[in-house]
């Protein structure tokens, strides 16, 4: 424990800025993964245990696309769209077969794919740590805000993730498809009664979840090392995020993700060895106080 470091950081604007930005990028990446998890749960009542793999694939797809084309924008696109297609196939070919079955079967199918996907990545890209490297466009001197160091890429990352959150929020609130998705989350039977193809909605939600997680992976690729199994810790963290925010709540996912991001970033100063433990502890406190999460609906 190093509470002095934490206290002196709070006293220094430079340190505050640095830690807050790093907390924000952790938080925004987590949000992109968690929001897909929470959407899929909201609409399908399925916890996609293999969602972390989507994040992993997003990162690997982006790395390969970048190495082949040298274009950062194309890399992001490949990471997001490639993973969306993967999500669609995964849902249509496998998950759709276990919707009626109990939770155990759903967890097992996901568990199987966690094992399979990790090995597939190991086969294609190898077991060792990989790095995509910072794109040339961002290899510029960092910005200084109130004396704190902020790499420009961090700002881009936060901006893109924030834009995705806004588009998603508006899309769900304003567009027809968004309304259908929210209706499906509220009452699956009603949607099929209206003559809307639920299979299409379900596949679409998985694709959307894949898109967002893939985008998160792609955005993370330049600043994180890539390794098979990298998805699992992200999965656990985004699950913590959804539990804290409340399953099915998008606003909850955003707030939860930012809280976890800040806890991780400031916790690493005060409790360097126990940052993760801090996160779990926070979740436990929230759960004890509010079992359905901060923004979760009270179950009858």
């Amino acid at each position, binding site marked *: 424990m190093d509470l002095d470091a934490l206290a002196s950081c709070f006293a220094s604007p430079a340190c505050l800025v640095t830690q807050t930005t790093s907390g924000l990028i952790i938080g925004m990446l987590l949000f992109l993964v968690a929001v897909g998890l929470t959407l899929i*749960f909201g609409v399908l009542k399925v*916890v996609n245990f293999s969602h972390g793999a989507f994040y992993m694939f997003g990162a690997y797809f982006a790395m390969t696309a970048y190495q082949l084309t040298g274009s950062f924008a194309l890399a992001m696109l490949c990471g997001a769209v490639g993973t969306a297609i993967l999500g669609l196939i995964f849902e249509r070919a*496998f998950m759709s*077969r*276990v919707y009626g*079955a109990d*939770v*155990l*079967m759903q*967890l*097992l*199918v996901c*568990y*199987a*794919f*966690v*094992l*399979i996907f*990790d*090995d*597939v990545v*190991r*086969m294609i890209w190898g077991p060792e740590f990989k790095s995509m490297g910072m794109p040339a466009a961002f290899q510029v001197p960092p910005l200084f805000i109130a004396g704190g160091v902020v790499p420009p890429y961090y700002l881009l990352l936060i901006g893109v993730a924030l834009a995705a959150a806004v588009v998603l929020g508006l899309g769900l609130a304003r567009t027809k498809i968004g309304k259908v998705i929210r209706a499906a989350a509220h009452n699956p039977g009603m949607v099929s009664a209206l003559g809307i193809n639920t299979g299409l909605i379900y596949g679409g939600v998985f694709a959307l979840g894949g898109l967002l997680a893939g985008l998160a992976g792609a955005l993370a690729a330049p600043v994180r090392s890539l390794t098979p199994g990298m998805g*699992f810790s992200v999965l*656990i963290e985004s*699950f*913590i995020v959804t*539990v804290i925010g409340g*399953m099915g709540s998008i606003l909850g996912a955003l707030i939860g993700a930012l809280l976890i991001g800040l806890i991780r970033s400031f916790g690493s100063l005060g409790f360097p*060895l*126990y940052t*993760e*433990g801090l996160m*779990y502890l926070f*979740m*436990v406190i929230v*759960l*004890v106080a509010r*079992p359905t999460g901060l923004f979760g609906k009270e*179950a009858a």
Partner: protein
Amino acid sequence: MTELQAGEGAQVLKVPRIDARAQRYRDVLIALVAFIVLALLPMVFGSKQLLDFVVRCAAYGLFATSLNLLVGYTGMISFGHGMFFGLGAYGFGLMMQKTGVPIPVAFAATLAITFLVAAVIGAICVRLKEIYFAFVTLAFQMLIHSTILSWQSLTGGDQGLRGGIPRPPFLGIDLSRPMHLYIASCALLVIGLLLMRQIAQSPFGYTLRMIRDNPTRASFIGIDVWRAKLVIFVLAALFASTGGMIMALFVSGAYPEFAYWTISGEGIFINMLGGVTTFLGPMVGTALLLLLNDTVTRLTEYHGIVLGIVILFFAIGLRKGLMDFIVEWFVQRREGANG
């Protein structure tokens, strides 16, 4: 007795009754025979591989069967049950390395620690609805795993407990000798299974079945659902911890993988593989998974893919475990013959 014998048409002249006492004697007898067979096994097949296999079966079998008390009997899908396996291995290993107490004392003390930890974690988790329960137990598993990794001075971090676990002889039993360890593991397995069987067939076992089927109704006949769930959560943890201790004795150490989430995942899969509707399903599943693991690891380095495909076959193809499948097949055949 079958449906048909007792079906609608049957007269109520002679009511076939469940004889509770005879069942208990039968179970004890089966356990004794099983133990004797296991104990005599080395005389027939002396292969070390086989004995090692049985010891690993004992460790994972206790763990998986205790998980079935939660998953199969109570309907509580814990994705973090493996934390108690790890806790048992580390607790016992550390106790032996640091304090030098006799093995039975370390055994009892580890159970006591497991009891406390499980009671605290259980008190937080058992109120949660199924999917929340699954993931919050998983989060606790990760918490314990990350604690083990980061508390290097005590646990050795990612290297695990190294330097071997001292196994001083007690009461003429020397667990550093493979044969003694083998017999002790078999004894622990048989006793553990017998105790769990007793729990499953006791009034409490039926309380658990009621909670699995319909917790709301259970509370309206006066059952304190929360308390019953907490009790079985803690009891299952004790058996899982025992499995972990056997493992620590067997490998003479403890590794972070023992506390990693994949142990829980494998436990769930073992239950699936063997089937949750029969008491011994998880034991069958354990043997199958260990065989599968050993074979696959020998054949390919990508054993996740093979394992994943096997899981998919059971989850999407059969939609039930092997023992469930066999039992249903038998019932259908018998009904076919009768009708």
